[in-house]
């Protein structure tokens, strides 16, 4: 039983790897698209700019989509969530478009980036948020946020100047704007929920 962490050359994957290792998920950093076929779950991390992530991720697009359509639970984190959408105000590059909607800049009324711990408002019952309540805090670091066209994908929101999509889900596709790997025990709980899904 193993979880692939897609290592497409952006940012720092050690923390997510380490957190998955801690919960005994058997993580493996995958640097080549052809190796992505043999995993029970796929994690798509992402930091830095939307455009850079998309450029680097494009060679993985087909294999991740194939895994997703084959029913493999897939989790996008931070910019790894944003790239699932159609486009972003941050960069001219097109997103993956697997979730309809766009990514926009945080409002001017707040400090940007949002950096720190915020609570969730849970919008729907979804497996990865099992055991999580509206009182729990999660670690966010981002300057842009996702606006899904279809509100039914919203699993949780957070309040930062406006209502921000914090978690979305559709079938076996999940994504979170915050960093579960840096959100203490509650963050590990979310990763553990995800890993348990891969073992059904």
């Amino acid at each position, binding site marked *: 039983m193993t979880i692939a962490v897609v290592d497409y050359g952006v940012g*720092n994957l050690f923390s997510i790897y380490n957190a998955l290792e*801690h919960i005994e998920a058997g993580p493996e950093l995958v640097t080549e698209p052809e190796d992505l076929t043999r995993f029970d779950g796929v994690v798509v991390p992402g930091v830095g700019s939307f455009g850079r992530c998309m450029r680097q991720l494009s060679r993985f697009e087909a294999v991740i989509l194939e895994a997703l359509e084959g029913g493999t639970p897939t989790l996008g984190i931070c910019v790894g969530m944003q790239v699932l959408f159609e486009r972003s105000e941050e960069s001219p590059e097109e997103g993956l478009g697997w979730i309809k909607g766009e990514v926009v800049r945080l409002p001017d009324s707040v400090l940007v980036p949002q*950096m720190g711990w*915020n609570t969730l408002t849970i919008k729907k019952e979804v497996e990865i948020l099992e055991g999580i309540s509206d009182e729990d805090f999660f*670690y966010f*670091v981002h300057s842009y946020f996702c606006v899904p066209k279809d509100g039914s994908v919203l699993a949780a929101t957070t*309040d930062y100047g406006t209502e921000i999509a914090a978690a979305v889900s559709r079938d076996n596709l999940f994504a979170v704007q915050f960093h579960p790997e840096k*959100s203490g025990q509650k963050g590990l709980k979310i990763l553990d929920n995800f890993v348990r899904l891969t073992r059904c």
Partner: protein
Amino acid sequence: MLARRIIPCLDCDLAVPQGRVVKGIEFKQIRYAGVPWELATRYYEEGADEIVFLDITASSDRRETMKSVIRDTAKNVFVPLAVGGGIKTVDDVRNIFKAGADKVTVNTTALKRPEIIGEIAEEYGSQACVVAIDAKRRDNPTEGRISVPTPQGESWFECSFYGGREFSGVDAIAWAMEAERLGAGEILLTSMDRDGTYDGFDLPLTDAVCKRVRIPVIASGGCGNAEHIYEVFLKTGASAALAASIFHYDEWGVDEVKRYLAERGIHVRA
């Protein structure tokens, strides 16, 4: 609502295996506090929102020790880890991230070669690049200095570098604004006049920087008790407060500080 953050800071002397946490007073006298990864784990369990490690030895032969400190910590501590001291190149950043850090703080290098801020931000995102400013209060601001009213009269603040051993001549407040423009994700603002004194944060300095930048500011230097943290959150726009001694010597637990703040209406992570 976003919570105000409490950040324990570990000043690490890496001249011994595993390293050791020490704490100075106004950047000078040094006192032993414990083993870095053990203290970090304790603070994590008490509810620290983030942990900062500063290499106060900061010579190149000790980098390996810092990497092992971070590796040991990152196995059990799942909040952001920031590392600073002696970071000169993006290669240094890469190495410390590979050990498990999430952010780096740059001070001397950024003053001498400001492009490093953009280089880190480009590769790892702005959030990964914290610019640390050690600010010393100076009397009689001259033309071109940003003047701040303080209890000692009109003042300006000068950036120190090389761990407080030298002064750069650079206006600390202007530098914070410039660092934001260059791509810094956060400012770690330390008052050299208050550091280790237990007299409380430098409120005029902190306020002056918070009012001029649109990125989070971490107030640092002088925290002697929970009331000081309450005060800096009440009277300035600081997003986070950093403290060392009050946590190291068992005067306050991170959880006790948070309870104190929550009871007085400051929004913190429970």
